[in-house]
């Protein structure tokens, strides 16, 4: 996930990213970036992420937990 984030927002300081913080605030990414991240995660992990679940992947922690439950 961090790799995909770095691809979308290479300027982001992923070292100091608070795992529970909202990615959109922490990293200055917008909703198009987030959409692209969802698509990238789907492609990379083969996990279906229905559009309605996108809000459940707004922080690093939440996204990891979500992806685990989906078998990633």
């Amino acid at each position, binding site marked *: 996930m961090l790799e995909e984030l770095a691809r979308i927002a*290479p300027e982001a300081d992923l070292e100091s990213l608070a795992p529970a913080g909202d990615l959109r*605030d922490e990293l200055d990414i917008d909703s198009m970036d987030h959409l692209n991240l969802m698509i990238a995660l789907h492609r990379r992990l083969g996990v279906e992420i229905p559009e*309605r679940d996108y809000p459940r992947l707004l922080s690093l922690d939440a996204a990891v937990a979500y992806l685990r439950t989906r078998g990633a």
Partner: protein
Amino acid sequence: MAFPSIEKDRRGPGPRPNLTNYRATCRAFSYDAVRRELGRSPGGGFNIGYLALDRQLARGLGGHLALRWLGRDGSVRDFSYAGLAAEANRFANLLRRLGVEPGQRVFALAHRTPALYAAALGTLKAGAVFCPLFSQFGPEPVRTHMEIGDASVLLTSATLYRRKVADWRHELPSLRQVLLIDAAEDAPEGTLALTPALAAQSDSFEAVESAPEDMALLHFTSGTTGRPKGVVHVHDAATHHYATGRFALDLHEGDVYWCTADPGWVTGTSYGILAPLLHGVTMIVDEAEFDAERWYAILQDQKVSVWYTAPTAIRMLMRAGAELAAGYDLGALRFAASVGEPLNPEAVVWGREALGRPFHDNWWQTETGGIMIANYAALPVKPGSMGLPLPGVRAGIVERAPDGGVVEIVEPDRVGELALRPGWPSMMRGYLHEEARYRKAFAGGWYLSGDLARRDAEGYYWFVGRADDMIKTSGHLIGPFEVESVLMEHPAVAEAGVIGVPDPVAGELVKAFVALKPGALEPGHEAGEAAEALARALLGHARKRLGPAVAPREIVFRKSLPKTRSGKILRRLLKARELGQEPGDLSTLESDES
């Protein structure tokens, strides 16, 4: 596939639409009658802040809900007209204490918090000029816009200040104070914590007796060349905001209205603050970003009756599926409108199927200050069309003649440039400090929009494309020049050409073609990991400077870019090739891309 017109059933429930007989309304319409209806303050002023707040108190709406703010964390804050006026008055008093004079510019770089709305209205009441910036802009556009606008005061948050302003703040001599919305007493040096500062101010303030032609709002827009332009609007813009709130948004007493646009863009100010308050309705403001389920819940729970949103959001809702919408009761929704870029006919029709209401697309620009062409509540909607000109607005399709003049195209369905007869109240009054560029926007008695369009035999307008290289992405107009300039600052870049490429959600995405300086990549490494790493470094550089809303989403390398004899990069050719289209006239091409 052709989409049939959507006819309206006028016997439906709800109030009678404000515009039912288009021709008769257009004939009878006069802006002076609208001005008389709005009236003036007791001292004779025509001040938007007065008209939006104090006038409503005088009409007995003091206890009516003006603003319901929905926090990201689920909290709700309500402001009656009297309550919002009190907050605005504190801000106006604070500006006065800081020595801000009428006409001086108050910038806002802030998330959608109640303080932002109170500040906008307080600024207007104080006779100062409200200049909103989008919080997802990077430091570069923020600085440029504040320089162009001679910013006196900046309202922002502690985080946005630290990330985007602090580094260069002392290089902007006009900037006398920075107000931090969320700082406590420990605001950093050179800034002022807003909350305690406001608490010390009185909550009453007599609005400055502005003249209708006094500057009220300053928005920014990009050009294909040169610096962004500061688009000047005056207090009389309220006349058009009010008229279009009535006809294009069909606002009625008692409406709950939700404009999803951020006040950092012109829609979020003209129709996200001013038009609803001028009509005395309740406006919903959501602090959070787009989220399909959250949005449906807001429409349902707040009983939103009039909704003004944007194509990108609508297409994201479409991706989420009509089944999701079906789980919510959207019965309160009477009218749904869209602006930002042309709304594709599928989305118009989808609105009717999924929400029970078709989306009504409309067209306008930062320069026009308000809606110019629209689909109306009571009239048939032609999916894919921007609709018919507003009462009071005279539009036309023109072509530029070789002598510099323009000729109107009268036959239907011929493509030309969409133009407007000047004189509507929210028309820009200038590009700040750029008289020559302002004059260039007019010719032969027309304002030239830069958009290509056609008008069908029934008078409906259809967007065709841009006449220039401007990029329409997520409803925002991005100038390729400012993106190219930032890319060129990177030591590895020799040339950059930036275009918009079609995207199913955003309309267009910003894509950059870059030719590198010799030696930027070692021979044999023009593709592969090193190239990918450099592309990423460039992307990061651009995003850091410009912010995600303006920076490219994709960067590709070329050995060289197609150029004219004078060395101008032929973006049009890059775009034609990207789209697999005929590039058109290439007589100016001197060196091609490789």
